[in-house]
């Protein structure tokens, strides 16, 4: 399965991907983008199966990216991994078509619980 991981922080991309491995999800192929604009380009070239995105990013943030993807008629599974954890933000994400929201700080267990139905 090919995962597009969108985050402007290289450090966070490393931590997220390491935590996903610790959670027991092997065999995922990650492609990366620094923001929503780059993500749209990578989606075109790499055709990922699922998108994990940060919320706050320069150029185009995560919720703008999700809305653009849905406007384009793409039903790809999309989830947020974000420090945004208010109920309002979570609802905004789900209303826009997100499948899940994982809040930072996270643990391998929180990834396991949330991603098992998504990646299996």
């Amino acid at each position: 399965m090919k995962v597009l991981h969108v985050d402007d922080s290289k450090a966070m991309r490393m931590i997220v991907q390491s935590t996903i491995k610790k959670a027991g999800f092997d065999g995922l192929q990650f492609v990366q983008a620094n923001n929503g604009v780059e993500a749209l380009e990578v989606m075109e070239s790499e055709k990922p199966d699922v998108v994990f995105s940060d919320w706050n990013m320069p150029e185009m943030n995560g919720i703008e990216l999700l809305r653009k993807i849905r406007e384009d008629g793409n039903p790809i599974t999309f989830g947020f991994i974000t420090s945004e954890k208010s109920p309002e933000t979570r609802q905004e994400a789900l209303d826009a078509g997100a499948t899940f929201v994982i809040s930072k700080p996270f643990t391998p267990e929180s990834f396991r619980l949330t991603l098992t139905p998504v990646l299996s």
Partner: protein
Amino acid sequence: MIASDKEITEITLNVCQTMLGLELKRDDALPMETEKPWYSSSVCISGDAKFTIEVVACQDAADFIARAMFGIEESTPSLEETSDALGEIANMIGGNYKGILGGESQLSIPCFETKDSGLNFDFADHETVNFMLETGYLVVSCRAN
């Protein structure tokens, strides 16, 4: 209302321990002067609530955090890596505090800067909590805008 001492402490300890396995200790003494630079990363909450969350670390503490975040064991982190790591700490603390506040508000992208001293910060009108890492000071503050 400005984040309380207790809120800042709980959020910071949770972020650093859960994500990075770092053991921080509260230290109520003022940060010591060092010859090395200090680094700051801040995020702004705007909208219904208006606050700035700032994370300041002496160079040794900032390098320690960057090493933990990037899994660097031997070499010294680059300034870009230190900026990235400190920015993510500020982002997570700000995001968690925004979650406590509720309402309609936005969180900015982290702003990084280098400072000459740990003693020149104007902490007046801030709620500020000092922490001690293995290698130096980490200071987290919240101020209303």
